[in-house]
């Protein structure tokens, strides 16, 4: 076992590629924990950001600036009574959130956080992702059906119709990105997630800018479709609170409800990573063409540390701005500790960046570590921007009506993505 553990170190393929089950398991655990933490962080950030959009403060009571609110919420949901309606189909009611959760989390096996920072590099990666993520709709339909109640049923039907229709536009947009991977010397494309990012690296352009504006249009279409696919505002038909109380999960409560929430947010992160991988160069840092001198590599590798330093500074400012009253003492200490942890991480990252600076000896542990951190950092940063987009849209826009949503899916997105696909093929053949 130790042998298996050691043999992978220094390898530059994914654990799946190296056929190393132990490391694959470790990666799976890291990703599972990471995504769960990300969902909690997202939960806090969404409430805070939404509150500030709406001139409120948001959570302020549990922990400094409500930092412990997601933990308190999770605890509360776990301790709640587990209600299964008498008229519901017990087994199906029980299994529905699990299906959703499985679908949302299985996708992460192929998401490349870096060239070797993925559980596995499947050669049909993107196909696998689309396939598995569309299983999520099964959980929703089943939940609505098993609840044996009108509102959940309508919610489930709405959302299944919505997800199925938008998947087509989404798939076509994805195909046009895959098509772009094939415009190289050998003329062969790839479906592998890592391969797609690599081909952006080789072609020296992120696909969002390729064949301008074709890549951009495909990207925008994908973003619209992915918001609809994850049932988020302004397409949150399925759980339109003002119409259907809570849509398909009206009858759910406690832990089961929180599983739905977890899978919804996990799915949001998953589709955002698809967008990042296909159009925004995945783990690649920005401006690789303009600023490619070795010195720039070092500058960009400072970003992770600087980001954490910035977060620490914000937290320290928060400490300084807290009222001096003694009842805030615990909160002040807590936030200061949080800031100190962030600052410590920042120092660590900066240290690694400086230690891994020597570009000549690429094989040194510090250099490899630094590289890995860079990859994951840029990937996560890009995904985080999408998360902010989700919140922004939710705060700004009213909700579409169901028939309008379907009209956009079939009459607007589908023709545009089809046209972009055809044009991409034509332009690609002409250019290459």
């Amino acid at each position: 076992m130790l042998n298996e553990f050691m043999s992978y170190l220094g390898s530059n393929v994914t654990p799946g590629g190296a056929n190393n089950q132990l490391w694959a398991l470790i990666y799976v655990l890291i990703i599972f924990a990471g995504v769960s933490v990300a969902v909690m962080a997202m939960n806090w950030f969404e409430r805070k950001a939404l509150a500030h959009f709406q001139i409120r403060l948001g959570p302020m009571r549990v922990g400094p600036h409500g930092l412990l609110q997601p933990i308190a919420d999770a605890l509360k949901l776990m301790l709640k009574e587990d209600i299964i309606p008498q008229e519901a189909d017990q087994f199906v009611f029980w299994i529905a959130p699990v299906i959703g959760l499985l679908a949302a989390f299985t996708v992460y096996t192929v998401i490349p956080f870096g060239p070797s920072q993925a559980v596995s590099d499947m050669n049909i990666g993107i196909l696998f992702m689309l396939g598995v993520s569309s299983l999520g709709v099964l959980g929703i339909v089943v939940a609505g059906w098993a609840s044996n109640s009108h509102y959940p049923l309508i919610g489930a039907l709405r959302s299944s119709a919505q997800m199925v229709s938008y998947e087509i536009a989404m798939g076509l947009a994805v195909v046009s990105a895959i098509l772009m991977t094939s415009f190289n010397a050998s003329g062969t494309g790839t479906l592998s997630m890592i391969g797609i990012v690599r081909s952006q690296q080789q072609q020296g352009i992120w696909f969002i800018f390729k064949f301008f504006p074709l890549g951009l249009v495909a990207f925008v279409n994908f973003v619209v479709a992915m918001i609809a696919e994850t049932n988020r505002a302004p397409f949150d038909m399925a759980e339109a609170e003002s119409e259907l109380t809570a849509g398909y999960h009206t009858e759910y409560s406690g832990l089961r409800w929180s599983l739905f929430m977890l899978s919804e947010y996990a799915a949001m992160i998953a589709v955002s990573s698809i967008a990042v991988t296909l159009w925004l160069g995945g783990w690649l840092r920005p401006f690789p063409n303009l600023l490619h001198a070795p010195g720039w590599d070092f500058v960009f590798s400072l970003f992770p540390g600087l980001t954490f330093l910035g977060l620490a500074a914000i937290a320290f400012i928060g400490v300084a701005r807290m009222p001096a009253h003694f009842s805030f003492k615990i909160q002040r200490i807590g936030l200061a500790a949080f800031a100190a942890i962030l600052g410590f991480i920042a120092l660590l990252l900066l240290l690694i960046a400086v230690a891994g600076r020597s570009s000549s000896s690429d094989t040194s542990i510090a250099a490899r570590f630094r590289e890995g951190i860079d990859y994951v950092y840029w990937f996560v940063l890009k995904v985080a921007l999408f998360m902010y987009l989700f919140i922004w849209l939710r705060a700004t826009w009213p909700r579409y009506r169901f028939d309008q949503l379907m009209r956009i899916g079939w009459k607007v997105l589908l023709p545009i993505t089809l046209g972009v696909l055809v044009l991409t093929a034509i332009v690609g053949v002409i250019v290459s």
Partner: protein
Amino acid sequence: MSDQTVRDKSDVSSQALSRVESSHHDHSHLHLEAPEKPYLDSNELIINMGPQHPATHGVLRVILKLDGEKVLGTECVIGYLHRGVEKIGENRTYTMFNPYVDRMDYVAAVSNGLGYCEAVEKLMNVEAPARAKYIRVILTELNRIASHQLWLGTHALDIGAMTPLFYTFRDREEILKIFEKYCGARLTTHAFRIGGCQYETYAGFEKEVKNFLTFVAPKIDEYEELLTTNRIWLERTKNVGVISGDDCVALGVTGPVLRASGVKWDLRKAQPYAAYSEFDFEIPTGENGDTYDRYLVRMAEMRQSLRIIEQAVNGIPEGPIMGKVPKVIKPPVGEIYHSIEAPKGELGYFIVSDGSTQPYRLRVRPPSFVNLQALDVMVRGLLVADVIAVIGTLDIVLGEVDR
């Protein structure tokens, strides 16, 4: 719940709905679409929206008959908030009943009080002094803005835009602060007395009202910025819940809903009360009678209210605030109907006096109650989501519907 009870319930609602339909045969011009099939043989879905539903503005219960998402018919079930206000009125003296009217349309309590006080004054043949009338106009128009702000916030929330709600509540707060300083209460103000006002304006009242005017005008632009040209807002409100001016008149619908259908009818102009004849303002009207026009009309009304308040504050006369009314109010035998333009429409009071200290009969004509009738006409053939939008655009307050 057993199958038996389920069937019973749907039977009850189907009877209720067929009642609605048969009553509609009398007004064939209002009859939009009649489902031909009998109930239990079809796949229609009957769902209960409310009384505990996030978007029915309180305790309205709407029984919806749906074909998929299409609305085939509705039946409003009201009375969950019934407190017997009219009956209470018959058992209280005229003065004692005054605070009760605030509890009807609790988001426009000042308007309710104005209508009641003026009705009793008319019955007693007294008139409030000029200064009192001006104070009444200022507070009533402030209340109209507050009511419209609350309507806008909840209406936008129903359509899915969360943020305007908080903006409107932030600005409504300034109005409530003025009320609180004037009479000590924010919501159920009991601001006026029969014969005038009890309280003189507080020091700095005029300045504060003027400050509010300059404060709120750009805020109204801010709401409009979020919604008026928003593509989704347009799609959700244009051609939704269309009602013609004739239908409005036939159903007795008044207020912004009527004006949005192109009928220029505003009691402030048509039969001026308080001091309204002295002010210069316009009656905004719409053309299509859809949800979007109603939105525009109410937004324009807020601006007109600002104009009225500005003129009133600048021209407020000095003098007494209480007319010559006896300590014990005993109107002569007779009856009176007096109505005012409340934010939601025509608010009328019909009072029959037998010469005693208590009304023999007191009847309120609440705008929300009458306007709610139009719901069925407006939503037939639309989708579930539109029902919510139309309930929002009718701007009902269940306290007033049920009384």
